[in-house]
């Protein structure tokens, strides 16, 4: 009986590791940018291409940067959550229309509603690359000093907003 004890122990440990592995999401790659200054950008706005939006414009406030596109399914999924957040007005949401056609982006917002304070257009996807975006929607929490504090990969939902993002935003706004 005793000689089965060691193989059994090894088996239990392996099953334990595999079990934990099953609960993890391989799509969520931790971003090396969290805790680092947000990459600079200056891009034309969606509704008025003559106007620019740059990182410098947003210094001194806590804000969310949401990468989205009219072609992105997950963006439609998280859209009501963003609308609700915009309605209570606790934190401004800035949109980044990622690799999208301007007319389609505008039409999408007209159809479903616009939760964003201002939207910039990243047509080539270069700003997306600088932010390490690999699957829209992605949302960044950026503090008053322009440092990325949190990154959400994939659609936001109410529980992430209530448990992670809003407590962090309130804490950062206090600073």
């Amino acid at each position, binding site marked *: 009986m005793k000689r089965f004890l060691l193989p059994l122990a090894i088996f239990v440990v392996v099953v334990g590791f595999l079990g934990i592995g099953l609960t993890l999401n*391989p*799509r969520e*790659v*931790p*971003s*090396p*940018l969290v805790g680092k200054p947000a990459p600079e950008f200056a891009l034309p706005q969606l509704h008025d291409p003559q106007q620019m939006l740059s990182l410098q414009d947003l210094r001194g406030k806590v804000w969310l940067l949401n990468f989205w596109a009219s072609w992105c399914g997950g963006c439609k999924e998280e859209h009501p959550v963003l609308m609700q957040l915009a309605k209570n007005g606790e934190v401004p949401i800035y949109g980044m229309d990622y*690799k999208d056609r301007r007319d389609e982006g505008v039409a999408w917002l007209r159809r479903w509603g616009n939760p964003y304070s201002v939207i910039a257009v990243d047509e*080539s*996807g*270069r700003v*997306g*690359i*600088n*932010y*390490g975006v*690999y*699957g829209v929607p992605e949302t960044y929490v950026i503090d008053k000093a322009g440092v990325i504090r949190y990154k959400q990969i994939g659609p936001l939902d109410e529980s992430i907003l209530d448990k992670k993002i809003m407590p962090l935003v309130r804490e950062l706004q206090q600073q």
Partner: protein
Amino acid sequence: MRRWLLVLLLIPCLVSAEEAKPLAENPQAEARLKTLALELRCLVCQNQTLADSTAPLAEDLRREVREMIAKNMSDQEIRDFLVQRYGDFVLYRPPLKATTTFLWLGPFLLLVVGGVTLALALRRRAKTVPDPTLSAEDHQAVAQMLSEGIKRS
């Protein structure tokens, strides 16, 4: 007259010959892109390399790498550019650092543990199997049995 017409017909050929470009603008740069991209992971379809993937992001990243090659950046600088943005996950060969020590040393650790276990098991078995010491009588008995066996057959 005819000869002059022929000469006139040849003029557009000369112009277009000047404008024609090779298929890949810089085959050397393309080769470098390929060797680099084979070592980089596409983040959208995670089990494909940047060279294989047809995802739009992979195309964009190949474009970035191409531009960095054109800017004469070293392979290490290009890899660093991607790691800064996407983390070590983009590298198919993870670097040796605190969080990856187990990954790198694990196999050697297992080899040592296996070797020690094997040595111990062999030693223990050597103890349980008694050394067969044969006396002169034993030898005689065996010889007798063998010779009888031969007779019987």
